[in-house]
């Protein structure tokens, strides 16, 4: 049976992990590869490197990171952030990334998903969606772009369906209402998208307790759960999370 996945996500700037990392015995807490290897040892199912480098001329460092990751990691990894064109994506895939995630650029130009999926296969293209619940309407969520700064008026569930139709292989769904809150995933949102699309959905945003991971799978009907700070700060290991999930009857790889 296909296991539900647990995915640590790292924000990377100029090739270095940003956001505090508080990991004991880590030689270089800023090195994304060393951190990813640690997560591999803890049985992470894959990792995501989110490139938050502000300027495009510094993106070389992220191509280098992908190249090093393919040489040194023995688990799948995804690189997200800043892809504007198939050519941008091709460089990252050629450097060894298993998957890339597209976000704002795909909202601006949905054809990017179609073209990238045709070129590299649907399994290589994640569509990342950041959304907030629409005030006064608990069953509606609006897509935001540019790091959450710009509202689009686009319905998140409809956009997820469109992205899947165009060839996205997975949806990485972040609730901006919950991100950083430690209140748990927005399970109603996750479930609405998971039921609307026939591709895997990764729940993101809001994890603070072990219970939240299981809720994302059971209540949110997600195929995978993503977290960042609870892993980086050592609040939980991936192994602890998976052991808890297994105790709740969720199939995991340990």
């Amino acid at each position, binding site marked *: 049976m*296909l296991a539900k*996945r647990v995915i640590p996500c790292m924000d990377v700037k100029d090739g270095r992990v940003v956001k505090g990392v508080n990991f004991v015995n880590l030689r270089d807490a800023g090195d994304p590869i060393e951190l990813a290897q640690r997560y591999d040892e803890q049985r992470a199912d894959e990792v995501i490197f989110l490139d938050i480098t502000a300027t495009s001329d510094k993106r070389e460092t992220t191509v280098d990171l992908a190249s090093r990751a393919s040489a040194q990691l*023995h*688990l799948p990894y995804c690189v997200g952030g800043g892809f504007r064109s198939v050519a941008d994506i*091709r460089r990252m895939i050629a450097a060894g990334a*298993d998957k890339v995630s597209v976000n704002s650029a795909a909202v601006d130009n949905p054809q990017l998903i179609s073209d990238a999926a045709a070129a590299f296969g649907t399994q*290589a293209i994640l569509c990342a969606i950041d959304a907030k619940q629409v005030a006064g309407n608990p069953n509606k969520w609006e897509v935001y772009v540019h790091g959450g700064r710009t509202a689009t008026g686009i319905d998140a569930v409809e956009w997820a369906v469109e992205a899947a139709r165009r060839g996205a292989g997975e949806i990485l769904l972040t609730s901006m209402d919950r991100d950083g809150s430690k209140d748990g995933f927005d399970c109603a949102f996750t479930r609405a998208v998971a039921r609307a699309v*026939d591709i*895997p959905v990764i729940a993101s945003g809001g994890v603070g307790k072990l219970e939240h991971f299981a809720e994302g799978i059971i209540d949110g009907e997600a*195929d995978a759960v993503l977290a960042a700070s609870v892993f980086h700060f050592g609040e939980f290991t991936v192994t602890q999370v998976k052991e808890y999930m297994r105790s709740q009857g969720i199939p995991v790889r340990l």
Partner: protein
Amino acid sequence: MIAVVDYKKGNLQSVERGLRAAGAHARITDDAAEIVAADAIVLPGVGAFADAAATMDELGQTEVIRRRIAEGVPFLGICLGEHLLFEEGAEGAGADGNPRGLGVLPGCVDRMPRQDAEGRAYKVPHVGWNTVDFPAGAPENPLFAGIPSGTYFYFTHSYIAPDGPFAIAHTTHSVTFPCAVQKGNAFGVQFHPEKSSDAGAAVLRNFVEIVKAASPALQG
């Protein structure tokens, strides 16, 4: 030397590194002459069946690989590389029918159903870690030496190989399908050993052992 066949779809470094870590001398090449001279061939898997088959034809790889497999040279196809062992694939079918594979094994690689026999819905692509199960009572296959039935490997695909007596392991998602196949020294695996952590490294080590047994001259 193990030739890691490059058919211009990228992402071969992890396979090459995995084989090197397993103790082999591996080299990425698109050159049919190098494939002719290699002690073993690894065909990694990315992209679509039709594109890959067309590119391999253009580069003169198809005939060479088919001939070398017939000669008994160890071969490992990974993901799409496993699919290409079969006669044809439904992915990217054109007006003149399905694209042709190497034809080492019979049948057509087809789309994974989105429903099981009871009508329950499944997500496709089949992405993530799933268990690899060996037939009960079968002797241990050398490719899986030391690996227990039920071990998790990493999958990412939408198409599956047909079943047959060549299947040496199965995995279940919407349907139960062959996740490893064999004909003589030619093996194919649907999962990605190069992305499957310790279990994947063990499979690559086992393949390198198979290569060494077939070609004692191959060292380092």
